[in-house]
């Protein structure tokens, strides 16, 4: 914790978070017709028609989304480096924050490959099969919430342990992250609903759940960048 650290690439890695959110929103969200998604009660023909008529757009969106998925993990590692300045780097919370970010990358990569599969040769697939791939991707990306919660909890609890008069990451943000981790649990009821607030396209299980996470990433990035500056100044003053 008190050791000098080399912060050379930290800022670059930290910027990967907002970059990921922006790319994911455009490519996975808009090009892939996932922001908002088709409602579960939408007819299979509607989903299939979109994939057939927009196959190239969906392919492009998913290929770029898959290429940028590791950016989330890179960002998570940058935030974990800052956490090392709050608690010892061997602390299990630092390890959990890292693996939470890495696992989240996997849970983005795998479902995007399902959407890409649906767009690969949609004219040869029956409607129900395209719908099934679309459903499968959504069930995985939503129900894999718990791996991201691991990262959210580890970072939240870790940053709460900051004993500085002005913490590197404010406590309100640490608590906000913990809250987001708990709120993700609401995804558990998503498979029971085809319409309404709790469906994958509903106000709760889509709009609120995705937005509170997508807000957390850039806000935490802002404080991470500020923290990197502080760490560098503290090291310079101590030299």
């Amino acid at each position, binding site marked *: 914790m008190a050791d000098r650290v080399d912060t050379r690439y930290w800022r670059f890695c930290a910027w990967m978070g907002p970059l990921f959110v922006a790319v994911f929103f455009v490519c996975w969200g808009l090009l892939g017709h996932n922001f908002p998604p088709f409602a579960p009660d939408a007819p299979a023909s509607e989903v299939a028609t979109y994939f057939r008529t927009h196959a190239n757009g969906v392919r492009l969106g998913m290929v770029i989304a898959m290429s940028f998925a590791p950016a989330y993990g890179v960002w998570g590692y940058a935030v974990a480096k800052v956490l090392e300045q709050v608690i010892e780097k061997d602390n299990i919370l630092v390890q959990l924050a890292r693996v939470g970010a890495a696992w989240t990358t996997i849970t983005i990569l795998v479902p995007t490959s399902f959407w890409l599969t649906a767009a690969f040769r949609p004219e040869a697939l029956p409607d129900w099969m395209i719908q099934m791939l679309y459903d499968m991707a959504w069930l995985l990306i939503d129900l894999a919430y718990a791996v991201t919660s691991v990262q959210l909890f580890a970072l939240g609890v870790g940053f709460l342990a900051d*004993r500085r008069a002005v913490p590197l990451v*404010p406590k*309100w*943000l640490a*608590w*906000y992250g913990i809250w987001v981790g708990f709120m993700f649990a609401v995804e558990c*009821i998503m498979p029971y609903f085809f319409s309404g607030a709790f469906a994958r396209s509903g106000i709760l299980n889509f709009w609120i759940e995705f937005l509170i996470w997508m807000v957390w990433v850039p806000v935490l990035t802002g404080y991470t960048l500020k923290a990197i500056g502080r760490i560098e100044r503290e090291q310079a003053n101590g030299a």
Partner: protein
Amino acid sequence: MPDTALAPAPAMGIASAGGRDNRVLPSVAAMPGDSGVWVFIFADMCAFAVFFALFAAGRIAQPALYEASRRQLDLALGLTNTLVLLTSGAFMAQAARSARAGNARATLRCLAATLGVGSLFGVSKTIEWSAKLNHGIGLTTNEFFTYYFVFTGIHFLHFVIGLGVLAVLIARVRADERAGDTLAAGRGRDTLRWIEAGGAYWHMVDLLWIVLFAMLYLMRGA
């Protein structure tokens, strides 16, 4: 955001060493407990505000269905749950007062009472849910019961987390006592901060239930 919770203790009202001093210390922070925990509470209240708005909109759209469904709820069990949580909340408030007065023994007793009485809510809720499921009423029966099971389920998750927090607080006060720490200084002062934070959370669980009780069990429709 400067953390006032870590500021030096105010030089007043500290329980005298060896003697019993029932004067109540001011909160350790401008807001009781850890300043950041209020963000968690505020965010949670916002989420529940969305839930309540959803329910209100559904009720306006289908008043007859909501009223018929409401009549199938067990008002006596709902009222029992409310009284249980209010009683538990009163013990929690007394635990925080005792902690601020530096009385570790009384704090422990009140925290244990909060946990013990609060646990009855879990028993009562389990009985109520089981009865509904046995009557063939479940998550997807209709929109009212979807909201009923989801909202009370999410509230129950908060309640279970609250029980865990209470258990941790009891363990921590006991550990401080064994180590000879008071609730007025050092690690004990941190414990006081967490008792206040845990208390704020527990009262939120109370408050949300009261709103749920009124909304689900009491409000008459068409």
